[in-house]
């Protein structure tokens, strides 16, 4: 199967058509926005994190199928997870997309998210797949940095571009 076929398989097209957890959460305690200026992908993430656990998560925005499907599947994967486990997934997803994680030989928790493995061979599309995960990281990180400074409200994180 070619890289492109491997990437645009039915599960990704389905999440693009019917994104899960699409919208915003009223009274969310974590927010972040991610933006790829090059392609116009734009993701807004809102979450409620209680006792170190992601209770609810939703996203909205505009983007290509890869970006939207990645965001949709990400929300499904991290909902109910601890912040630590979500961060592990962020690192593993980045590793898969950039080709530094070998899915065959290295243990991981990616499961269904492995449908995005083909993106590593399409360098111009890697950033589309990773954007939601960067945004998630920013939302989680903003809170932890805010909590160390003792502020009540998290600071929205903004991402410009990708490595």
């Amino acid at each position, binding site marked *: 199967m*070619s890289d*492109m*076929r491997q*990437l*645009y398989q039915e599960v990704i*097209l389905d999440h*693009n*058509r019917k994104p899960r957890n699409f919208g915003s959460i009223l009274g969310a305690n974590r927010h972040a926005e991610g933006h790829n200026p*090059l*392609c*116009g*992908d*734009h993701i807004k993430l809102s979450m409620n994190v209680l006792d170190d656990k992601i209770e609810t998560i939703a996203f909205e925005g*505009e*983007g*290509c*199928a*890869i*970006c939207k499907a990645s965001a949709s599947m990400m929300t499904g994967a991290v909902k109910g997870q601890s912040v630590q486990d979500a961060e592990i997934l962020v690192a593993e997803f980045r590793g898969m997309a950039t080709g530094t994680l070998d899915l065959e030989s290295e243990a991981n928790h990616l499961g269904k998210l492995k449908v995005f493995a083909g993106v590593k061979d*399409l360098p*111009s*599309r890697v950033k*589309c797949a990773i954007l939601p995960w960067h945004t998630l990281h920013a939302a989680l990180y903003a809170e932890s940095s805010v909590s160390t400074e003792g502020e009540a409200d998290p600071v929205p994180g903004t991402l410009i571009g990708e490595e």
Partner: protein
Amino acid sequence: MKIERMAVEGMNGERKDIDRMNIERIRADFPILNLQVSGKPLVYLDNAASSQMPQPVIDRIVRYQSQEHANIHRAVHHLSELATKEFEAARIKVQHFLKAKESREIIFTRGTTEAINLVMHGYGRAFIGKGDEIILSALEHHSNIVPWQMLAQEKGAVLRVIPMNDAGELLIEEFEALFNSKTKFLALSHVSNALGTVNPVKAMIAFAHHHGVPVLIDGAQAAPHQPVDVQDLDCDFYAFSGHKLCGPTGIGVLYGKAQLLEKMQPYQGGGDMILSVTFEKTTYNVIPYKFEAGTPPIMAAIGLGAAIDYLNGIGLDEIQAYEKILLDYATEQVSALIGVRIIGTARKKAAVLSFEIKGVHPHDVGTILNEDGIAIRTGHHCAQPVMQRFKVPATARASFAFYNTKEEIDKLVDGIRKVQRMFI
């Protein structure tokens, strides 16, 4: 080989027959067109971003590097004399290509972007001040927006923007209404890279001159596709790039009227742009050398000269007529597709077709077409204000050159259908 006869509009409006360009022979000149991409023959439709290089230009570059290279305007040895002679011969080719009055009006730059920046620094910083107004159009490339914005910020000048209609045509009445006593400069593209609109630059230049306003024309998308006569246009500056014209990257041209260039400040300081230097005072060289500090891209300039020879061998009139046939055919085929919108429908267009497929992001379109060996550009085309005007984040853009064929357009149309089937 088959040669088709076909009728096209002649320049003076009468119909005349021309030999259809011998497209098979032309394609054979371009080694890269034999490439396979994703196991399919390359269909290269990204010519507005950069065009491909024919063998005669490649050969000329190889000959220069293997037999003629040395630094120019310096030593008295054989190679330096030869390289200087060939470099200056390229300047004269550019002069004739643009129909400029004198070769000293031709300045070699790194590209269109550097040419515009040169005018911004050399002319703008000297002659545009606080409260002065610079007119731009709504369909400019970032390279003809950002330098003027930087100048406006530095000097406290103001940018005024000519709006356009839904077809992507500039509104001429609104353009005329922008002029007042504070207007000091007009910077305008000849052809829009994102939409293909051909602007009525000659009439707009005449209007600006009537108000005493000098005009820079960004010709990056025009010079490769139609004959350009800077004296007939009467523009004060004209800029274009070598790599969109079958030449190498790293070389571009700024044409400027001699009397303007002479009163401008140098853009960069260094070697070759001086007549004498002491620690107290430097006397600048004459034009064009005043604007060519340091060792220029000699190989690229000579390559550009060879590219101009190559295009002249085909004829810019013929190239323009043939590309219009390609554009008309592509427009007809793509507009027949349900769920596809063409963005940029000006009455006068160059061979650029921007489009969007309903419900599919342009980057997905680009990736899927690439699977069939089809290279198009997807994104904002360095013209974000144009994207904002049409309320799209990005477009897919096919842009044609004289070596493209109707068969390649058929492949593009098949590719678009395939994208639609996948995303239903």
